[in-house]
C-alpha cells in the first residue's frame, strides 16, 4: 500500500465496505478494571478489538482514556480482570503525539523510522541487519515520507511529522497500534488525511487501530467503533456513532447536538459485550 498521494475518499473514507469483515481478535478485555493504587476509575470493561478494526476513543480530559491506553500497553497493571492477546507473538506499537518527540533531539525522519525496527534488539547482536534497513525504506515509501527522510524531524510540518511516525509504525510490522491524539496539532485537512491513512492501514494491512481523538465528528466519520470513556459518570460506552452519541452519559458531557446529527446505521463491528 502506498499512501503518499492524497487518499481518495472512495478508497478510505468512513464506512467499512459492505464485503469487509473484521479478522481474528487481537485483544480481548474481560471484566477489565482500570485505575491506580487498586482504585477503580471506570466500571469493568468488556470488549474485543479485531484485525482491520478502527477504534476511536473519545472523552474529556481526565476521563480515563490515557489510563486505559497505558493499561492496554502494559505500562499499568489492571486493578482486576484480564487482557488477552489474540496470539502470543502479537505485536503492539505506540505512536505518541507529534509533540511527544523532544524538539531538541537532532533526529532525521529516517533515524526515527529505524527505531521502529528495534523490537528484536538484542544485547548480543544489537546492530541493524539488511532486512531492517530495507524495511525502513519500504516504510518511508509506504507512508509517503521518502522525500523528507533526511530532514530533521523538528523542522517538519505537523503533517510531515505524522507521516514520519506512520512510517515508524509501518516499520514495526505491528498487529495492533495505539495512537495518542495523532491529529492534535493539525489543521483540518491534515487531520482528515491522517485519519484516512489510518483507515487504509487498518483495512489493507489488517491492523487493529486504536486512536485517542478529540474531534468527535472526524472520529464518527472514520472509526468502525467509537468508545466513550467518562470517569465522572463511570461510563464506558462502546458502539457506533449513534449508540455512543445518544448515550445519556455522553449527552451529559457534550449535549444533544451530536446525537441529533449522528448517522443512522448498523453497528459496524464492535464486539462490545
Amino acid at each position: 500500500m502506498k499512501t503518499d498521494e492524497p487518499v481518495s475518499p472512495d478508497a478510505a473514507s468512513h464506512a467499512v465496505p459492505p464485503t469487509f469483515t473484521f479478522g481474528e481478535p487481537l485483544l480481548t478485555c474481560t471484566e477489565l478494571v482500570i485505575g491506580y493504587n487498586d482504585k477503580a476509575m471506570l466500571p469493568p470493561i468488556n470488549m474485543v478489538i479485531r484485525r482491520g478494526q478502527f477504534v476511536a476513543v473519545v472523552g474529556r480530559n481526565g476521563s480515563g482514556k490515557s489510563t486505559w491506553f497505558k493499561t492496554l500497553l502494559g505500562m499499568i497493571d489492571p486493578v482486576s480482570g484480564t487482557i488477552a492477546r489474540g496470539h502470543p507473538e502479537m505485536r503492539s506499537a505506540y505512536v505518541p503525539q507529534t509533540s511527544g518527540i523532544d524538539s531538541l533531539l537532532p533526529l532525521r525522519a529516517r533515524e526515527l523510522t529505524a527505531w521502529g525496527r528495534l523490537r528484536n534488539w538484542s544485547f548480543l547482536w544489537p546492530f541493524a541487519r539488511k532486512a531492517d534497513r530495507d524495511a525502513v525504506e519500504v516504510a518511508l515509501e509506504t507512508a509517503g515520507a521518502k522525500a523528507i527522510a533526511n530532514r530533521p524531524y523538528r523542522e517538519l510540518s505537523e503533517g510531515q511529522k505524522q507521516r514520519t511516525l506512520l512510517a515508524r509504525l509501518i516499520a514495526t510490522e505491528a498487529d495492533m497500534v495505539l495512537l495518542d491524539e495523532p491529529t492534535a496539532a493539525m489543521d483540518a485537512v491534515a487531520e482528515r488525511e491522517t485519519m484516512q491513512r489510518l483507515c487504509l492501514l487498518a483495512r489493507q494491512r489488517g491492523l487493529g487501530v486504536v486512536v485517542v481523538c478529540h474531534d468527535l465528528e472526524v472520529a464518527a466519520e472514520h472509526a468502525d467503533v467509537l468508545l466513550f470513556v467518562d470517569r465522572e459518570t463511570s461510563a464506558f460506552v462502546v458502539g457506533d456513532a449513534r449508540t455512543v452519541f445518544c448515550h445519556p452519559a455522553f449527552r451529559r458531557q457534550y449535549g444533544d447536538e451530536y446525537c441529533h446529527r449522528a448517522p443512522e446505521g448498523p453497528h459496524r463491528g464492535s464486539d462490545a459485550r
Partner: protein
Amino acid sequence: MLAEPSQWQQFIEGFELFRDPLLCALMAGGVLGFLSVYVVLRRMVFVSAAVAQSAGLGVALAFYMGIHLGFEVEPVIGATALALLATLLLMMDPTRLRLTRESLLGLAYALSGGAAVLVGDRIAQESHDIQGILFGTAVLVTPEQLRTVAIASILVMVIHLWWYRGITFASFDRIGALVQGLPVRLLDGVLMVSIGVMVGVCARALGALPVFAFSTLSAIAALMLDLRLPWTFFVATLAGIVSGVGGYMFAYFFDFPVGGSQTVVAAMLVGLAMGARALIQLARRAR
C-alpha cells in the same frame, strides 16, 4: 649566557611528566563528552553537577575515615561509591514522595556540597586534595588514577557503542521503547551507572568542576551544529577531548589552574560552535 629554553621545549623535555594527566584528560573528556549528549538531551544537566559534587564528598569522606577512624578507603572508591549512590537516588521516582526531580537534585547537590565543606574542615592536612577534587587544581594524576580512568573509559565506551541503538531509543522515546519490548529500565540503569562511574572516577583524577564541564558543555557545543544524532555524539566526544587536553595545555602555557582552564576551554568551544552555526545560517540565507 645560555638562552632560557622556550616553554614548548620545556614541555617536550618534561613530556613524561605530563603524559599521564594528558592521557587522563583525553579519556575523561572523550567519554564524558559522549555521555554529555544524553545528559543534555534528557535535561539532566543538574544531575551531572549533583553527581560530581557527591563524588567530591566521597573523596573527603575517604580521607576522613583514614585520618580519624583509622579505616583506609581509597579516595577513588569513595568518589565512585558516593557518585553511584547519588545516581541511584536521582533514578528514583520522586513523585512517590510528592516531590519533583528538581527537588531531589537540589537536595543531593546542596547536601553533598555542604557536607564536603564540613568534612574538609576536619581534615586540614588533606585540604589541598579536597580543593583539587572540587575545583580541579590537580596538575598531576597518579598511575592508579590513570589506570582506573582508562578501565572505566574503555568499559563504558564499549558498552555504549555496542548498545548504542537500544540506549538511544530507550533514552529518547521511553514509551515507544517500552511498547516494543525493550528492557528500558535496564538500559536506563546502564546509562545512569555509566554516568555515575565516569563522574566518580574522573572527579577523583581531574576534579568536579571540569568533569561537570565535560559532561554538559561538550554536547551543547555539538548540538549547536545541528548534525545527525550519531555525528552529534562524535562531535561531543571530540569537544570533550579538546577541552580536556587543550585546557591542560592552556593551563601549562599560561600558568592557570588546570580545572578552571579545562572548563573555560569547554565553554569557548560552545562559543565557537555558536559562531559556526551563525555562519552556516548566513551562508544558507545567502544561497
